[in-house]
Every structure is written in C-alpha cells, then in structure tokens.
C-alpha cells in the first residue's frame, strides 16, 4: 500500500515518464529545445511500461464555495430546493441537479460525497482547512494538498513541474504553500498568463549561451557545495538544476499545440483551456495540477450564478474526464472537485445562498475510485448530515488511499509526528475501488 519512493541515488527499478522526460531535457540541449514528444511516448512501445508508473491529481477548485443543492445534492420541491429540478444519471438510483446534464451521463467514473461537515465557513479558514486537510495551528505551517502530493509522487530532481496552480479569476486567488515540507514543493502559480513566469528564455541570450552559462554556474556552485555540504546548499543547486528542464516543458502550457478539435472539446472558456493544459501536464507526468474556477460566492442571485457557472463546470469536467479516459489516463489520474465549503440550504432575501460548511458535497473521479457511488446523506432539506459524516481529514485520507499513499504515513516535525492525513481520519472505503 505504501508507495515506494525511488531512491535518487540508485538506478530506478522502472523507467518513469518523468525520468525519461527529465533525462531528455538535461541530457542534451538539442533535445531540450524540441521537447514536443508526448505523442511519441504515448504511441511508442514504452507507453505501456510507463503507464504503470505515476499517478496524478487534478483538483478542480470551485473558489468561493459552490452550492451542493445546485450540483450534487439537489432537494427540489423543498423550501430549500430552489427552482432547479433533479435528473436521473447514468447510474440507476443516483440523481443530481439538472444544471449538470453532461456529468449526469458520466457518473460511472465518479463518486459523490454528500456528507461533508467541515464546520469552518469563512473563505480563508475554509480554504486553509480544505487545502491542508486540517485546522490551522499557529506556529505550524502545514503543507497544502498539492505540496503533499508533489512530495509523495514526484522525483526530487524532477525536470517537469510537479505542483501547478491555475486561477481563472482574481477572486479567491490563494497560493498554496509547501509549509514545513520546504519551498521545493511550492506551486508554480499561474494567474494572468497561461504560461508560468520566467519559464521562457529572454531574447537577449541564445539558447546555447543559456545552457553554457548554466554549466558555468554549476561548476562554480558545486565547488562550493562540495566544500560546504548542507541540505539548504544542496537545495540551491537542485533548484538551478531543474531550470533547463522546466524551460523545456514550456510547451506543456501551450494549448496551441493541441488540434483545434481538442480545444473545441474543452470549449472556449479559460477554465476549459486551463483544464486542457492540466491534461497535458498530467500526461507528461506532473503529479498535481489545481485549476481554480471562480467565483461561486453567490450571496445574491445564487440561481443565476449557478446556471452560468455550472454550465462551465459541467462541460469542462465532462470533457476532461472523457479526454483522460480516452487516453487511458483516468486510471491513474484522480480528479477532485470541491471548494472551501458549500452554501446554505436557506435562501436569503437576495435570492442568494450564504456560506455553509455543515452539510455539503464534493466528488472524486478516476484513479482508485469506485465510480457510480454515493457516500453519505443529508436530511430532506439539506440542513444536516444524517449519514456518513465526513471531515476534511477523512477526505484527504480518501484521496491518499485512492492514490495508493499510506494515509497514516507521518512527517516528523522535530519530535512531533504529523500524519499526512490528520489524526483520527479514515479513508472512505465505500467509494474506493
């Protein structure tokens, strides 16, 4: 169950796509300059070998908090239900909101959790809880989900990025942090541009000079680290050692490399295009990509807001799952869809729903998940969880279990053990494959 991490000092037991890409990226500047070889990998005889390797997570983050009643846990006909109906899905007995018609036909790969009770209903606190899997504590900087996944699933010297966060909107922009795992695992954060900052070479220096300059830097820097061995010094050289490889992976962020039909498949929205980038990234072996869609914070006009945002979510999430499945990537890619909390069943005077963390929903799709399952239950008005209460720690434990990571694994912070999923949390076996 516990994932064996490859010892960087010894030859890897199996060839991973990350290593292949990395070797190509650093081994030769010529190869690094022309790195669009993904299709080559997926069609070569190596593909099957590689496919057994690495797992990835795509987190679709619904910033601001989406309404469970307009998505995964509808209550039509009740005073809390709002105007939208529920529809039958491809899985007998499971009904979701009519605002998600495409997803309703694709629930076979998806598990719904309807019983999140996470208690914290302010944006900052809810975000911290749902992105670290535990309550904040002064004096300890807990790592965010992406950093944990990168730490567990990435090669330390990975030549592809391993923790990416993309935001479509200025609202709800919050940058995840690696906390005590160390800045090596901080996210590459994309906001205004589809391309990460500083990933491309400036015109002022030729590629050959850029590479030679890096070798010169390495020569000087390693003379120092030989004399003064220290993990922090090593991290400096490791960071610079990754630069050329990361630059060589810039094409992963370039959706123009996809055929128009594929771009159309994801649709013209920024969320759609970013999810297409996310697929390109996980295909290249990037272990964690977060795509945040904002702004779901519908204190007023909840139903108009959800009519618009759910259409985008429905289309893009369905397109992503289809594409991943068609490429054989869904078995090793876990797609998590959630925000910092849900929304109040009670409809307020502005036809809005407010923050609500005591009975809300999220979904898990793909890798390690028993598709077509529903876990937990809320009462008929959606006010309380009446079955299968689930906390943030349990959700994290489930995510780790789905990826084959031991959820009881501990990080040691001095003498204090910190399990990667919070103490006393358990994976939801019912929705695991």
């Amino acid at each position: 169950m516990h994932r064996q991490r490859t010892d960087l000092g010894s030859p890897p037991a199996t060839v991973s796509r990350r290593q292949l890409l990395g070797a190509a990226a650093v081994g030769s500047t010529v190869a690094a300059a022309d790195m669009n070889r993904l299709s080559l990998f997926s069609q070569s005889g190596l593909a099957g070998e590689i496919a057994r390797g690495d797992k990835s997570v795509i987190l679709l983050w619904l910033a601001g908090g989406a309404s469970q009643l307009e998505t995964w846990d509808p209550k039509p006909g009740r005073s809390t239900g709002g105007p939208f109906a529920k529809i039958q899905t491809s899985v007998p007995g499971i009904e979701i909101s009519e605002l998600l018609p495409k997803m309703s036909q694709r629930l076979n790969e998806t598990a719904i959790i309807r019983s999140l009770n996470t208690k914290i209903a302010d944006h900052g606190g809810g975000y911290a809880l749902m992105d670290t899997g535990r309550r904040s504590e002064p004096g300890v900087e807990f790592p965010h989900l992406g950093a944990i996944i990168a730490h567990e699933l990435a090669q330390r010297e990975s030549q592809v990025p391993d923790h990416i966060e993309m935001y479509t909107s200025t609202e709800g922009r919050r940058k995840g942090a690696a906390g005590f795992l160390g800045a090596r695992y901080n996210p590459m954060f994309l906001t205004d541009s589809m391309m990460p900052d500083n990933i491309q070479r400036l015109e002022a220096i030729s590629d050959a000079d850029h590479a030679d300059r890096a070798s010169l830097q390495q020569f000087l820097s390693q003379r120092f680290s030989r004399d003064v061995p220290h993990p922090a010094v090593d991290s400096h050289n490791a960071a610079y050692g990754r630069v050329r490889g990361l630059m060589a992976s810039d094409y992963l962020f370039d959706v123009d490399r996809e055929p128009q039909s594929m771009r159309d498949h994801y649709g013209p929205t920024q969320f759609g295009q970013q999810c297409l980038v996310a697929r390109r990234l996980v295909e290249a072996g990037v272990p964690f990509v977060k795509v945040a869609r904002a702004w779901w914070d519908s204190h007023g006009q909840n139903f108009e807001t959800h009519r618009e945002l759910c259409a985008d979510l429905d289309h893009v999430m369905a397109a992503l799952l289809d594409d991943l499945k068609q490429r054989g990537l869904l078995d090793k890619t876990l797609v998590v869809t959630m925000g910092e909390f849900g929304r109040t069943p009670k409809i307020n005077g502005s036809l809005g729903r407010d923050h609500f963390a005591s009975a809300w929903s999220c979904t898990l799709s793909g890798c390690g998940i028993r598709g077509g399952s529903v876990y937990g239950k809320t009462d008929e008005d959606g006010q309380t969880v009446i079955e299968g209460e689930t906390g943030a720690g349990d959700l994290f434990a489930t995510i780790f279990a789905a990826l084959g990571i031991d959820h009881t694994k501990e990080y040691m912070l001095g003498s204090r053990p910190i399990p990667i999923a919070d103490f006393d949390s358990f994976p939801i076996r019912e929705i695991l494959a």
Partner: protein
Amino acid sequence: MNWLLKRLPAVRPARSALAGAATLWVLGFCLSVLLTSRVAAGEPATATTSGVSPGAGGASAAAQRLAGEIDAAIAASQRAAGIEPGAVVEDAGFARRVTLDLAGRIPTTAELQAFLDDPAPGKRRRLIERLLTTADYAFHQRNQLDLLLLARLRRDGAWRDYLLQASRERRPWDQLLREILLPEREQPDEAGAAAFLRHRAKDLDALTNDTSSLLFGINIACAKCHDHPLVVDWEQRHYFGMASFFKRTYTTRGGSVAERFEGDVRFTTIYGEEKDASFMFLSGARVEEPAVERSDAEWKQVRQQIKEAEKNDQADPPPLPAFSPRAQLVDLALEDPRRYLAKNVANRLWARLLGRGLVDPLDQMHSENPPSHPALLERLAEELVAHDYQLSHLVRAIMISDTYARSSRLADAEPPPPEAFAVALPRPLTPHQLALSLSLATRDPAALPGPAKPSDWEQQRAAWEQRAEGWARRFEIPSPRFQVPVEEAMLLSNGTEMQQDLLADRSDRLVGALQKQPSVPEQIDRAFRAILSRPAEPAERERLAAYLEARRDRPVAGLRQMVWALLTSAEFRFNH
C-alpha cells in the same frame, strides 16, 4: 548617562494596586542591574563621551570576557565529544560574514580591500566595532526584527519605520517588549509599534502562540487541546493562561490597539471539564484581577465607548482599563527575565549568527529539549540582563569569539554534528540581505564607498533599502528546513529585471565597469571580489578565462554570463 535616563520611564507606569508591588520590585531590580552593570562595564563614561551605543570601549572589555566564556564552553563540549574544531576562516571570508551579519549586505570591493590591506593587529575586532556604529547596522537590525516578529504575516511600513527608529536608538530589548506589547500605553502616538498586536488581534490563538514562541521561545500550541503529550511542562492551563493576557485585546476602527475592561478565558479539558483560565505566565506565576466596583451606568458607558471606537474611526480614543492583562504579562516576564525573555532572545541571536540555536528548534525551550550548552545559554541571558538588555552586547561578544570565526569549509571531512559548532554552518541570506547584495554586487565597484562613508550614507543606504524591496518580497524567508524554491532560480535565470537592470551594459554597473579592465584576468578577479568578496582561485580563473575566450566575438555577453553565474552560485546565496 543618556541610556540610564531613557531606561527609567520604561518601568515607570504603575497600573494597579496589585501591579504596584511587582513594578516596585522590577524597578528596584533594574536599579540594581544598572549599578552592577556599570561596575561590570568598568568604564561607565564611554557611552556619554562617544555618543554611540553604551560602551564601544568599556562594554567591549565585558564582551571580551564573555567571548572567552563562549569559547571555553564550546571547546569543553568539543573535547568531551572528541571533536576537533575547524580552521579559522580567512580574512576575506571573515569580512564577508561580518558585513552580512552587521550591515545586512556584502562588503563593497573598497571595504574588502581596506580590510585585507590593514596590516595592524586586531583588525577583525576593529571591523566589528566599526560596523556596529555605521548606519547600516540599524537598517539590518530593523530587517531582522521585522523578520522575527511580523514579516511572515504582513508587511507594514509604519512598523518598519518604528523598528528602524528603535534600532537607531539602540532601544533595549525590555523596552521593545513593552512597546510592542503595550503600544497604547508606551507609544500612544506611534502607529508602528502596535503592528505586532494589530495584525494578530483578530486571532487569539495567534496572539497567544506567536507571543509565546517569538518572545519567550515556547511554542505552546500543542497544549491548546490537551496537556502537551511530550512535554510535562506544558499543560492546557498554560496555554489558556497565556491566552488570558490577550483575550481583552482588540483593535479600534482607527487601527490602534486597546483592551476591554472585561473578558475571561474558559476552556474544556479532554475530560469535558469546563475550567476558567487564570492570568498565568509560562512560569506558573499568576496575577489576580483586583475587584473593581462599577455601577451599571459606568459599565454601560465603558462598553458604549469601546463599541464606538470599534465602529468609528473618528471616535475618541477608548478608555484604557486600570487593570491591563498585557501589562501584567510584561511585568511577569520581567520579574524573572532570564528564564524566558532573555534566554529566548539570546538563543535567537546565537542562531542568527551561528546557524543553529543552543536550543533547537528555537521555539522548543522546555525540559524535554535541553540546550546543547545549558550553562552558556544561562550566561548569555544573564549578561543580556546585566547589560541593560542591549542586544549589541551579545552580538559583539559572539562575533569576537573564536567560535564565530570558524571556517565553513570542510574539505573532505565528515561534517561534525551541528550542535558542536566546530565549523561554521552555511546560513541562507535573508530576503533583504540577498536583495541588497545583488544590487551592490552589480554596481560599478569604483562608485561604491570604502570604510569611510560619505556624510549622506544613511540616506544612501535608505535608498538602497528602497530599491531592494521589490526583490526582497520575492525571496524565501530562512526557516529551519530552508530550501531554495525553483521560482527563485527561474526568476534569476530568465527574469527581465536581472537582464535589464542588474546585468545592464551601463557604465554604473559591474558589467560596464568590467569592460574597462585591461585584461581578462583582471576582469575575472574584479568580478570575484565584487560578487563573492574574494579573489578567484586558479581553477576558477582558468575555467572563466576559457569561457570568456570562447565569447571573444561577443565580449559583453560573455561578461554578463560570467557575472550571472557568480551571482547565482550557492556561494553567493549563503552566508558562510
């Protein structure tokens, strides 16, 4: 005796009948400290005659004695462990290290050269003394205090200005403690001093734990939900006792910090028992709140005034209660200052200068995590209190010790355990150290001053600080598990600022200045001195000469690339 006069108001305010006794005790204690420290310092007149920090000459005799004690304690532990201390760092390395530690930047080429050329004995001591009196010291001290107390949470300009002024005046540590924990009483007209509390005021846990960790060296967050599982010292009542001192703290709409007249902390044990917390310091010492008779009308009025101040930024300043829990906390901390307050700051200064605390981690000062050198830590704390809480006394003593002057180079030896302090540990530059050093290193070295500074150096340094801000914000703050993030490597590799500003082909930049050098070896040597603060070694010179030779058709590009490679080398990124 300026410092004596300034010292007295800090203990003046008597806040309540009950606090009175403690205050008197503290006052008496401080007077006795003043007397003993004068005797200990030997030359009490230096402070007034030199017009700089107390005792540039007199205190240095005491610092010399303390440095001897440091070296004796460290040597004894090394002998006991069978560890040979490393070599002493060579002059150029010493100059770089000391300048980074006192001025917060690398030395200029002229400063370095003047130091290397100085044939007279005792030049290391003189360099330390000189740097302690330059304008740079206060800027660096300000940046360090900000990093310790607030920078991880928030950037606050007024707070940084306040810290700079405090650092310029060499305000003693106990006074800083009073000012940042009691801003509404000690610094009512100073918005900056309140920032430590203001940015935490909405979060009682942050107030409680940050104060406890940063000022007293004790992270008690683990004791919030249950008695500490590993440390018998820390029970829930300690956590909530500390929280009690902050429970009444709030911010007004206008942004000042104040206290309510009421508000107590209750907590639930793991057995479900509800308890009232008392005003209890980490030491276990408590204070009782004196009973105060107030009519309903008086209560109503006070609450109304506070409510108004919370709502309306034009409201009158809210009334301050006679019984101030935070003032009680300060008094309790100063009752036995060596135990927590002084020990914590001594440990943090030690870690700042030597790369690791005598207690490590820094916020785990408790019985289960003893110091590597307990008696030495006690002595440092004692000396700090005896020397009027002047941090520069400890800084000076540590920096003139042999322990501080070890080389970081291991050659091929196994690294000794870090707590042996047998070799210098590499320390990542802080964001400001790195940003300032990048700026300085890439200027025309001839345009930068040597040890004698122009009369407007303070303004110049302020301008350097200003320019460094943009860079500093993008660099990682040092932490126990510090790692250089790849974003930094990408920024410095491909960012436009590096190419267009630091590496600009202009006469006021290093790249421009190097072009005027008559030969390649001189270009290389000048770049090494400007950036790495040392001459190039033969293997480096050879490699770089070949590199530049291969770019004879594009010499400026070659120089830029050489400068870049030196700036981004690990050697530049660390203090070592």
